[in-house]
């Protein structure tokens, strides 16, 4: 590796890692938004994944891939428990039920000695390198891209545009919604685990309301027409405060303003193009 590149990677390693992690989070948000639902539990799912994998790393000698699997399956169980009652109802209920999840997680993490209380967990082994983070991101993007272009993707788009019409056309709404929520919880859990093992420290206050809204702003800025939209949103919103230093103190103010502007004036986001379907003529 050339020395200049090595230097660059060393200097910006935390930024490069968080770009990849935020990309995964944006994808996890995309999966839910793509079927017209809103989950505000992405940050909590991320926190559950982060804590589960970090505790496994610190207390057991499990192989890392198994820890990552646990970091995906445990949030998935939470998603099932929250989704089962709420997804039968209108979209507002999922949003309201998940908004409380982050707060509940924070209360639990601060009170519990096992999770390090208010101090959080430190000294998590740095097992997640750039290759792993970007490998996961690439795999998730590819998988979502293929799904978006398939029959499943068309069903998802139909649900987003008009639930009733989709149901009449034979789309199994509860199954699609539940699968989307569970997949998104798994992606967020994975992102949390990778982040914990890249930054070596996690705290109970990293997964609250602000984090949940920030993840939403990635997806809304980029647009939910395709997975690339959400990725672009995460890229812009992670880099912007780094490039514009004075923005740092106001990064959350900017994220909030972006959501407002995106929903009101650019409902299709920065990347409005939709991927061609498999088998469609251009």
């Amino acid at each position: 590796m050339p020395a200049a590149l090595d230097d660059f990677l060393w200097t910006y390693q935390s930024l490069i890692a968080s770009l990849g992690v935020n990309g995964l989070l944006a994808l996890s948000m995309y999966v839910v938004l793509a079927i017209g639902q809103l989950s505000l539990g992405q940050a909590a799912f991320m926190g559950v994944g982060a804590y589960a994998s970090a505790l496994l790393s610190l207390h057991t000698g499990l192989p890392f891939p198994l820890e990552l699997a646990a970091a995906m399956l445990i949030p998935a169980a939470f998603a099932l428990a929250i989704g089962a009652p709420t997804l039968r109802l209108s979209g507002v209920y999922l949003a309201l039920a998940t908004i409380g999840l982050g707060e509940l997680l924070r209360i639990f993490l601060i009170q519990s000695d096992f999770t390090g209380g208010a101090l959080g967990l430190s000294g998590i082994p740095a097992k997640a390198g750039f290759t792993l983070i970007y490998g996961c991101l690439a795999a998730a993007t590819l998988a979502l891209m293929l799904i978006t272009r398939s029959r499943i993707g068309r069903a998802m788009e139909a649900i987003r545009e008009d639930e009733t019409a989709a149901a009449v056309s034979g789309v199994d709404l509860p199954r699609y919604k539940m699968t989307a929520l569970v997949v998104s919880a798994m992606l967020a859990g994975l992102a949390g685990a990778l982040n914990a093992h890249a930054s070596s420290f996690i705290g109970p206050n990293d997964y609250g309301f602000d984090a949940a809204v920030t993840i939403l702003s990635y997806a809304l800025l980029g647009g939910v027409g395709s997975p690339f939209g959400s990725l672009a949103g995460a890229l812009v919103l992670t880099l912007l405060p780094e490039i514009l230093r004075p923005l740092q103190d106001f990064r959350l103010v900017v994220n909030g303003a972006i959501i407002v502007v995106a929903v009101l004036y650019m409902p299709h986001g920065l990347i409005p193009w939709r991927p061609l379907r498999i088998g469609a003529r251009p």
Partner: protein
Amino acid sequence: MLLQQIINGIVAGSAYALFALGFTLTFGVLKIVNLTYGFYFSAGAYLALFATLHGAPITLALPFAAIAAGFIAVFLDSALLSRLRRQQAPELASLMVTLGATLFLYTGMTALIGSEIQRFPLGLIESAPFRFNGASISLTQIAIVMTAGLLAAGLIGVLRATRTGLAMRAMAENPQAGELMGIDTGAIMRRVSFLCGAIAGASGVLIGLEHNAITPYMGETMALKGFAVIILGGLGDVGGALIAGLLIGLLEALTAGYISSIYKDAVGFLLLVLTLWARPFGLFGRASVRRA
């Protein structure tokens, strides 16, 4: 001991109910979950703090804060939501807009005035508690319980017995039909927004007084409790919000007293999830399923 727990529970529950009254009314009439509602609560507390620091008595500062918060609510409602209403955007779009605005407003407010805890001037209100049978209750706490009860009764009265209330119920049922029947829907929306902002602002002042601690994010904490209250009471149900608020407050106080205060804040959320499993349209709600 039990008496004191019950008093604490009723006070906390009345506070939740007071806050949730406007929240549930917004949803009932305007059919949106307006997350900026928690901000009006914080704004009310800060406005009253500002007024009292400049020498105003609390009897003047409270109405001032409530009215100002009401106008803030009217302004934000028209800035954020009127465009979406014209486009008849899906309900989640309005939820997302208010979510973004909430983040913007809270973080903006923190950047401007700092996140330190601020307190009302000493001696603003009689602070010696009334004692009886070994339990005690303060004047502010009595005010919170009274306000919650009177306000809920007043709101139900307005909704049931006045023309404005009739128009509000008509809009809740079907805004297009209401408009065709000659209801000025824009004016009703402004009135509902003002009322909700004023309720949130007033509850911010009262609860800020009781805790004697004001922070920018106090509204967010309250809003999280508020979700549990309005879902348990049934979205849009004013009476349900009062009962659900009291129920959550009492259960929290008893949990804190007899199990552990650690789990106190989890009570609301657990009730919320249980409600969604068992009675998704609230304790007293009827299902209104839209079928194809």
